[in-house]
């Protein structure tokens, strides 16, 4: 069992609120992803058990939704918005800088296991571009000093 009792309880609680259990698949996958950090096949069976739907139903949703990584990523997943408003404010350069200082390629994990950088589409933060999301947190109006500080703070936290 990879899922914690807390996660399973939270999934059951979510499922109880919907008129139909299948609706709880996305909330349940969100809970699983936040506990484990990524999704994989065997996990779908556990999720399906927790909310009382079929593993196939869970798998077909999980594979469609790109927000949940399907392989291991760094402890801090840095998602850089590369869409138009951020692009106009230097997103390409921001990503290049992150990859350089972390010394990785897109999608890779840093040696200390802490960071992965990926490109994403518009995150709904266009008026505070450029921006990036680290796990669940948005960092906006970025410049080099801010990025350095964010990385340092995360490294310190470990």
């Amino acid at each position: 069992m990879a899922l914690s009792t807390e996660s399973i309880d939270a999934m059951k609680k979510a499922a109880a609120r919907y008129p139909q259990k299948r609706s709880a698949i996305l909330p349940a996958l969100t809970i699983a992803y936040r506990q484990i950090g990524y999704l994989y096949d065997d996990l779908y069976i556990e999720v399906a058990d927790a909310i009382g739907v079929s593993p196939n139903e869970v798998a077909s949703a999980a594979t469609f939704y790109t927000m949940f990584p399907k392989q291991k990523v760094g402890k801090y997943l840095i998602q850089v918005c590369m869409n138009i408003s951020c692009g106009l404010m230097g997103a390409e350069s921001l990503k290049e800088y992150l990859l350089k200082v972390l010394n990785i390629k897109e999608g890779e994990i840093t040696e200390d296991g802490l960071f992965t950088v990926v490109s994403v589409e518009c995150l709904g933060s266009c008026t505070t571009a450029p921006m990036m999301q680290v796990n669940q947190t948005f960092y906006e109006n970025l410049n080099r000093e801010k990025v350095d500080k964010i990385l340092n703070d995360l490294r310190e936290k470990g």
Partner: protein
Amino acid sequence: MEKKVLFANIDDPKQPEIDTYISKGGYKSLEKVLKEMKPEDVIEEVKKSGIRGRGGAGFPAGMKWSFVPKDSPKPKYLVCNGDESEPGTCKDRVLMEHDPHLVVEGMAISAYAIGAGHAFIYIRGEFDYPASQMRKAIDQAYEKGYLGKNILGTGYNLEMIVHTGGGAYICGEETALLNSLEGKPGQTRIRPPFPAVEGLYASPTVVNNVETLSNVSLIIKNGGQWFSKIGTEKSTGTRIFCLSGHVKNPGNYELELGTPLSYLINDLGGGVIDGKKLKAIIPGGSSTPILKPEQIDTPLDFESVAQAGSMLGSGGVIVMHEDTDMVWVARTLAHFYMHESCGECTPCRQGTKWIYDTLTRITAGEGKMDDIDLLLDLCDNIDGKTICPLGDAAVIPIRSTIELFRPEYEHYIKNGKPLVENKFMSFV
């Protein structure tokens, strides 16, 4: 002009607390509706306001509600669309974060109007903070008896649920959203049947945007007539515009509909950054045709923007200065539509990929002169030939940039490099 109706309390840090909201007259509209008005009276009032949907298409909200069959024995559902994924758009988030009870109250009134016992708010999965603000507000509303069983002793029951998505733009499209809410992949459904007749769990469902529903309690409080006097005759009320790109003061601004675009960009936005010249404006999110600097006085209302050859869309106004490579703009957006195509219909699935590959070839310096016609052909083969409007949207930036900036394409192809090089903020 700037007119803060939805944003009246947006700067009050205590506004998300229910006591603050109530102390300013909040939940009075819900009480009035439940105690004094019949559902059809509410729909009438909303019709009188003339409010049109703020999610993109601009369909009159009151009319949509009246399509819900009254005699259906099935349960009815209200869904508030907080997917907010159209590039350039970030306004619903502001309402959910800073005035969540305005959203909750609007949803509750609307649910009552259509006879729903369940109301869902579908929030894009990346919006963790807005979703937590909405959850907190909903919990508080339950505690105070504005949601749940027998609300304010009137016998009306309403459950309200926050549902978060999984990072797919297509789930903003209402039928894909409903599939997603049912736990399925976010693929679109063929209409008819329309959601008002057969939506969530095959039951009558109304889907409205966050900003649309946020206006509802204000319409009830001040009257449909009041609302209809704001804005222009056919575009009533205000709208929140998300000003982004190369302006000094980007941000979300609420304007009376009919306010000139120049007022937003120059007076509120402070004009173009670094003293550079304005080159292009996308007025309503990435799916709307580009306007030229000469069109900066276009009034921001549904009709005027349409007359100027574009659309008011989602309210995302994206400003570009002279040092912007328009082929790069096209490729950036082409990548987005390719990535977000749900894959259900071939013209969209294949066409968006082909467009992106062609643009990549051009920007890699390997383009051929025929590629411009190829791009236009690809657009013709997608436009109007797909199940949902994502396909139509995908061709807009391509056609628009070719039509207005063709020499930039030609230069790229002839010389293997851009006519205009991007000069944007640098981190390295």
